């Protein structure tokens, strides 16, 4: 007697995950608004859903976030030379 039947269950662990998105360009705009802190509550809600169900959105979100963090954190911030600060102060004081 056969012990088990090869039940062909889906090997997909997340069967509801979307692999393709038809409104990727719009989603990208929304993702940028969210990362910039300019999104509405509604857009935030929508992203939350998309981040669980849409593979392209997940990828875009991580990419945009990574680039933003890179710009914020890893680029050298030039400080104003002390000499220039002193020059400006001296010029301003000479006006009085």
């Amino acid at each position, binding site marked *: 007697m056969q012990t088990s039947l090869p039940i062909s269950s889906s090997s997909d662990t997340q069967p509801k995950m979307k692999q393709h998105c038809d409104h*990727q*360009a719009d989603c*990208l*705009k929304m993702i*940028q*608004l969210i990362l*910039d*802190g*300019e999104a509405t509550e509604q857009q935030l809600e929508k992203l939350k859903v998309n981040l669980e169900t849409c593979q*392209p959105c997940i*990828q*875009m979100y*991580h*990419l*945009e*976030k*990574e*680039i*933003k963090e*890179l*710009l*914020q954190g*890893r*680029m*050298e*911030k*030039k*400080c*104003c*030379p002390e000499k*220039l*600060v002193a*020059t*400006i102060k001296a*010029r*301003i004081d000479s*006006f*009085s």
Partner: protein
Amino acid sequence: MPEIMSDTPTRGYTEDQKYQIFNKEFMPHIDSMYNFAFRLTMDEDDANDLVQDTYLKAFRFISSFEQGTNAKAWLFRILKNSFINDYRKKSKEPAKVDYQDVETTYNSEEAEVEHTVDLRAETVSDLIGDEVATALNSLPVDFRTVIILCDIEGFTYEEMAKILDIPIGTVRSRLHRARNLLKEKLRDYASSMGYNEENED
């Protein structure tokens, strides 16, 4: 009076008040201003001149600044206008016309729809600051500017609209296009370095 401040009523500050505003509200932003000037001009001497000119102008027109309002945005706006009027002309930057071309191209529906740059977050996380700076510097100045203001300086869209004298909708779309261009540059850079060769899709 420069056009930048002409929409603001003037205030009668005493000499003491002027110095107080200048030192307490303007000077604390000098590092951000210098960084902005350097990212715009990509040259230390030009950044020095631009920051100095901006601060002297700010002092001269201090009566059009309302104490306690957003000094950083006000200063950035003066710096941006000085850059356009005095520095851009003599620099090697592509002229406004070139930028218009780019914006027109990216404005078309077609460009928007097919515009998803094939670049991976993991690839980006391998890049270092200098590589990003190079990519950023290669963008036309108007695109570079919105990225600096938003991502590096953390201005809101509303503040950016005021600094740049453009509607918020234009801020949003210009930023979107700027980021697509930046991603293209980063992708080209990454593939030239052999970072991003596998495309598993």
